[in-house]
Structure formats: structure tokens, C-alpha cells
């Protein structure tokens, strides 16, 4: 055996070096900003690339989900490594805001977005929006068979016929809107019926795929999964149509994706610049021209022309800061959905 002890020691030194090297590399990156990203990774990456190209400020992205990050930021408190928090929905923003962990968003940034798409206290701002839809199998269901309201899906006649992704922030945001609009008892009853009636999927795109494959007749998801798939191969949505509930129904809920700067951030200026960029011309153009198919929310900014216009959706009025995430996860845990 020729392996000598000095080899072993050098191996150990190498190990220590290897363990340290990435940390050093990491330390060097701390000039830029850290974004806790619960938005779709590809969209935020496109935003970050555009922003870095224009300003030279580096963006490090950590990916996760809305409520995971919201609760995480609350626990991290003043020590949070995050500078910016981006979500798909607003309940996560509301939770962080309720814990007073946001710095006020710059007035210039707030001015880029209309009143309905930002927090009343100005501590976070909408960056994009998405509409709830009932994605259904058009080979099986006709217009007349469709549910008039989200609440209809609690009816026993829908047993085994619809699906959703209950563990996802998207669906939980819809439930929080339901809670805000119809109250706790109605929501509890609806969730209980859902546990009986629905099939459960991991992720909205998976739920849509199941509808397409004929496994279930419909799914409560957001609109853009369908548009995104249609823009690519259409392989997962060729049998699927979208039904918009409209009429201020809880099922017509339009969810606001939000962005905020953490009060604890050591890079306030850069972080504020990032929010300003994504809500401004450059960032909103990514929504219009890219493949994310989320609604643009900037003043006078156009959304992707393929989408049903935001103004036609007849969304219910829900004050985003009132959406209660803790209550929602508790109710869903109680119903056995998560």
C-alpha cells in the first residue's frame, strides 16, 4: 500500500480548503442583493438578468415558496440575509408586513403602480398579477356543466371530479380570499367538502396536466399555466379550456404577486432600485413579451395580448393586507389537506 499518511494530511488540508473556498466565493458575492424568490424561477431570473445588465448590481436568488419565506423572514428577524422578498401571492407579504419587517417602498416605485395593486401602507408593491380559473377538460364538460361559483365545487355532485394543489401558495391565496369574502365557517365547510371531492396534485402545472390526461374533469389553478403551455408545445393543455368565474365570485379572485424590501437589509439603495426596475418599464416589458403570461400591473403597462384583459375579469374586491395566511394553513391543516 503506497498511500502514505502525508497524503492523508494533504487530503485533509484539501478538504478544509474545499469547504472554505465556496464560502469565500459566497462572501465575495455579498456586494449584490439577495432575493428570497417565491415567484417562478425563470421569471425572476429574467428580471435579475435585465436589472444586472442595466445597473451592474448582482442578484443572488434563493428559491422557495411564499409562506415558507414569509415565516422564515419572521424567524430570521433582523438577521435575515435577504434584501428583497418576491412572492406569487400577497398573503406572504401581509404576514411579513404585519411583523413590521418591511422598509417603506420608495415613493417613485409606488407611483408606478395603481392603488389596487399595492399595500395600503406602502410597505410592499405589486409586481405582477394572476387570475384564478377553472381549467376543465373540454372533451368532457360543456359550458352549461361548469360551476357558476367556486363554492359550487363543494356540492356532492362534484365528488371525484375536480382537483387542485392544496400545498401550494397559489391555492392557499385563493382560500385566503374565500376566507376574507365568505368568513371562517363557510371556508371551513368548503375545505371539508374539498377534502371529500377533490384530487390533490403537487403544483398547478401538474394539476392541469391531470385534467389534460383525463384524470379529472377540472382543476382550480391560475390562468397562466395554460397560456404558458400553449405557447410551448401545448402537449399538457390541448384538451383543456379555461373557465373564468367572474361576477365578483371568490373564484374570480385576482392575486397580486408582491415585492418588498426588508428593513434589515444592508443594501437598501440597491434593493429599492431592484423593485423600481421590475415595476417599471423594463420589468413590466418582461411580463408583456416573455413567456410568463402573468398580468403586468404597472400604470399603463400592457399585459401579454393573448390574455383576457384584466378589466374584464370582474374580480372581487379584496384588500390584500387582510389576507390571513396563518388562519388559512391552520384551517387547511384542520381539514387534513396539508
Amino acid at each position, binding site marked *: 500500500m503506497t498511500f502514505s499518511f502525508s497524503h492523508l494530511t494533504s487530503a485533509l488540508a484539501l478538504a478544509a480548503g474545499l469547504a472554505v473556498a465556496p464560502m469565500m466565493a459566497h462572501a465575495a458575492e455579498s456586494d449584490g442583493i439577495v432575493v428570497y424568490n417565491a415567484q417562478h424561477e425563470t421569471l425572476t431570473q429574467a428580471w435579475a438578468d435585465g436589472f444586472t445588465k442595466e445597473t451592474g448590481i448582482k442578484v443572488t436568488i434563493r428559491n422557495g415558496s411564499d409562506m415558507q419565506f414569509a415565516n422564515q423572514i419572521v424567524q430570521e428577524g433582523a*438577521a435575515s440575509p435577504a434584501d428583497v422578498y418576491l412572492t406569487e401571492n400577497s398573503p406572504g407579504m401581509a404576514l411579513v408586513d404585519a411583523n413590521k419587517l418591511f422598509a417603506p417602498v420608495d415613493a417613485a416605485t409606488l407611483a408606478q403602480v395603481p392603488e389596487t395593486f399595492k399595500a395600503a401602507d406602502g410597505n410592499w408593491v405589486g409586481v405582477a398579477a394572476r387570475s384564478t380559473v377553472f381549467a376543465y377538460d373540454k372533451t368532457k364538460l360543456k359550458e352549461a356543466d361548469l360551476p357558476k361559483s367556486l363554492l359550487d365545487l363543494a356540492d356532492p355532485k362534484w365528488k371525484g371530479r375536480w382537483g387542485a394543489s392544496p400545498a401550494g401558495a397559489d391555492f392557499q391565496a385563493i382560500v385566503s380570499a374565500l376566507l376574507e369574502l365568505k368568513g371562517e365557517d363557510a371556508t371551513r365547510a368548503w375545505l371539508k367538502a374539498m377534502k371529500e371531492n377533490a384530487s390533490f396534485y403537487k403544483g398547478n402545472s401538474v394539476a392541469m396536466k391531470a385534467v389534460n390526461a383525463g384524470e379529472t374533469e377540472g382543476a382550480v389553478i391560475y390562468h397562466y399555466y395554460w397560456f404558458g403551455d400553449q405557447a410551448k408545445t401545448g402537449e399538457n393543455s390541448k384538451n383543456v379550456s379555461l373557465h373564468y368565474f367572474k361576477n365578483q365570485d371568490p373564484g374570480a379572485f385576482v392575486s397580486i404577486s408582491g415585492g418588498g424590501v426588508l428593513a434589515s437589509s444592508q443594501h437598501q439603495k440597491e434593493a429599492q432600485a431592484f423593485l423600481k426596475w421590475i415595476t417599471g418599464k423594463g420589468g413590466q416589458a418582461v411580463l408583456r413579451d416573455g413567456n410568463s403570461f402573468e398580468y403586468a400591473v404597472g400604470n399603463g403597462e400592457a399585459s401579454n395580448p393573448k390574455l383576457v384583459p384584466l378589466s374584464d375579469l370582474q374580480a372581487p374586491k379584496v384588500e390584500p393586507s387582510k389576507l390571513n395566511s396563518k388562519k388559512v394553513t391552520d384551517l387547511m391543516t384542520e381539514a387534513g389537506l396539508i
Partner: protein
Amino acid sequence: MRMPPLTAAPRSRVRHASVVALASIVALLSLVPLGFIVWITIDTGWTEVAALVFRSRVGDLLVNTVLLEVCTIPLSILLAVTLAWLTERTDIPGARLWSWLAAAPLAVPAFVHSYAWVSLVPSMRGLWSGVLVSVLAYFPFLYLPVAAALRRLDPAIEDAAASLGLGPWRVFFRAILPQLRLAICGGSLLIGLHLLAEYGLYVMIRFDTFSTAIVDQFQSAYNSPAANMLGGVLVFCCLLMLGIEVLARGNERYARIGSGAARPADRRRLGWFVVPAVALPIVTAALTLGVPFVTLARWLYLGGADVWRIDTVGSALLQTILLAIAGGLLATIAATPMAWLSVRAPGRLQRILEACHYYVGSLPGVVVALALVSITVRLILPLYQTFATLLLAYVLLFLPRAMVGLRASIAQAPVELERAAMALGRTPAQAVRQITMRLAAPGFAASVALVALGITNELTATLMLSPNGTETLATKFWSLTSEIDYVSAAPYAFMMVVLSLPLTLLLYVQSKRTAGQ
């Protein structure tokens, strides 16, 4: 030459004491996740714990988990024992090739297996799909030890059974199978624990287990009591499984009694039976290797050159390799004191310490990660989201793997040589370093490789603990498959398989080599 006495001399007791101290530190660290769960249970209070544990969702998960275990393990045993018997004890043509192919599925991470199946049959979901993919991904954990055991069985026992008038089948069931008991129990335990811990495989196949439910809770509420209580139930399941294995293993002796060495067993002639016999390994290889490779090849072909982006694929590859090597070395170093003690100074204390080392590796990554997230964010913020914490998680999760290679090779280094060195004037430390460590170096390397293989394919702990900006092959693959972007995910899966191949090879060779022990 006069040898030092066999009872421990005062000098060597001092030496033991420092090694015991080192091993105890590692053992204490390994108690941290369990201690955390106990603490959080007490902290949460009985009423809330009861509300979180005794609810229908936990019941559903428990049913799922039990069904998964009871269906997967017997099927894996059946497949592994049949294949092992065919490749080791019959004249099946191409035995060596089939034996390679039976071990090779280990090079494909479990969640890549399910990715392959789901893209081939998009409607796959639920228990039976979970069982199928689990058997295909994990049966080599049974095949390797069973084949090794079959190889070293003393044919004299079978001859004796045959001479007493038993037919071939009865010889197999009454003389051979009982001697495989240790290998079967060990392999089944390993598979059983993997089934409890696996996350990616079951998410993709849409089958809820405790691991997937804990991650759901984590993503909905971070480190909530609900997630930690699910973790507690999961730990309980793991301990239960360890207990069952101890009972099933029994304490019969299986070693050859008396002097001499067993001759190699004769290979049984298959005759006309050779056709179905060859069909089995072919079908198995087609399902375990053919499906992943065809699917991967198809996605890679569809993606073309565009998906091979050097900036993202290259950086994920580099980070994975760095983490795997650093974690492999650290885990092996951490396991060294214990491995040495367990060979050189067996005793009650050693058994307790060793149990600590082994139990922690049986905990699912998601439980260890959740504990470390909660502890660092609440108590030791400087360690929060650092490589130090991630590497600690890897060390804890893969301690048993590191022990395996080390123990065997330290056991092969005769203590007499160490003593001779001391008699010639070396200090005990020098003797260990210059004799035992050198002789154990191949085992050290094997341990590093085994741990590195684990880290390359690790998903949940990396997702939950890694510092900002970390992207390994596994996490990158995962985020892309979550967006159903199977094409872009393919290069990452391919790289994981490529990295795992040499390590799987090593595992295979190692199992052949240790067959004599």
C-alpha cells in the same frame, strides 16, 4: 520479540480515552436532531401535540407508509434473491454481466428513476407506481449483500442437506435461505429506511408520505410545530423499523465452525430453464436501466445543444463535486474514532456510542434538515444558512456509510503490527498513524466515495439548508422538473448519473471483496 500484554496497558488506555472523547463528541452531535424533536414536543405542549399527531391526515400518511413498506420490501427480496441466486449459483450465461447490471441502478438517483417513468407514462401515480419505482430503484441494496453472502456460503451444508434426501427446492429453502437471513435483513432495513426518507420519487409519482407532507408543511409554514410533529412520527417509524430488523435478524450463528476454508459452490445447471432465467435479468435491466436511459436520451436529444449551458450546468456540477468531496472527507474523518474504537476496544460504552452513530443516518434528511434549520435560526444565527451547517447535516446523514468502509479495513489491519511498531519504539499515536491508518487507507477512500455518492443525490437537506446562491445538480434538476421542464432538467440528471457511476462501480467491487468476511 516480546509482545505487549493483551490486556490494555495504561498507556493505551490513555490513548483510548482521547479516542473515546472524540467519538463521544460525534455521538453527541448526532443526538442533536432527536433531542430537538423531543424538546419541541415538550415545548409545544401535550394538547397541541395530540391535536397535530392524532388527526386523519397523519392516519392517511401512516397507511400510505405502511402499505408502501409492506408491498415494496417483499417484492425487492424476491427479485434480489432470485437474481442473486441466478448470477451466483447457476450456470446462467453472462452471469457476470447480469451481476453488474443488477448493481448498476444505484447509479441512477431514485428521483431520476421516477422522472423517467413519469415522462414515459404520464398517468403514473399512487401506491402501485410508487412500489414499482421503489423496487426498481432500491432492490440493489438487497442484491449486493445477498449475492455476496451466496458467494461465500459453505456448500458442505447444502451437500449434507442433499445427502439427507432433500430435493433442490427444499435444499434452497431449508439450507440456503436461512443462511441469507442476515444479508436479507440488513438490505431490507436499508430499503425500508430509504422508503421512509425518500422525497423526490414520491412527489413526482404523486404519492404522499411523511417526507412529502413535512416538506409541504415546511413550504406552507416554515418550521411549524405541525412539520416537526410529522417529523417526530417519522422518527418513530424509523426506530420501529430498526427494532423490527433486530428481531428479524435473531442471534443465530451463521459462521463456519472449525478450521479450513469452504470450497466454492458448484453452479447448478439450469437446463431448459435457462430461457426464463435469462429473461428475468434482461427484463429487470430494461426496467431499471433501459427506461431511465431511453428517457434521458430522448429529452437530451429534444433539448439539443441549447440546454447544455456551461454557466448553469457547469456551476451546478462544480458545486456538487465540491460539496460531495468536502462532505465525504468530513464524514469519514468524523467516523474514524468510532470505527477504530469498535474494532480495537469493543465494550458496552463503545456499543452505545456506535448506536448513536448509526441511528442518525437512519433519520430522513428532511427531519435532520428541519432540526438544523430551527436550531440555527433560533439559537445560533451565525451558523444559519452556511456551508458549515449543510456539511454538518451531510456528516450526520452519512455517518453510517462512512463507518462501513472504515470498519472493514481497520479490522483487516492486524493489531499485532501496531504492537510490533510500539515494541520497536514508536509511540502509540505514531503506531496507529504509520501502520493502521496506512493499511486502512483504501477503506478511507471507499468511505469518502460512498458518502460523496450520497451527497451527489441528496435533495431535501440541500434544499432546506444550503446557503444563498447554492445550486447543486440535484436542486437544479428538482426546480426544473417542478416546472415540468423535463428537457432542461435532463442534463442535470445525466450529470448526476455520470458522477454516480464510478462510485457505484466501487461499491460493487467492494461488495465482492468483503465477501470473504
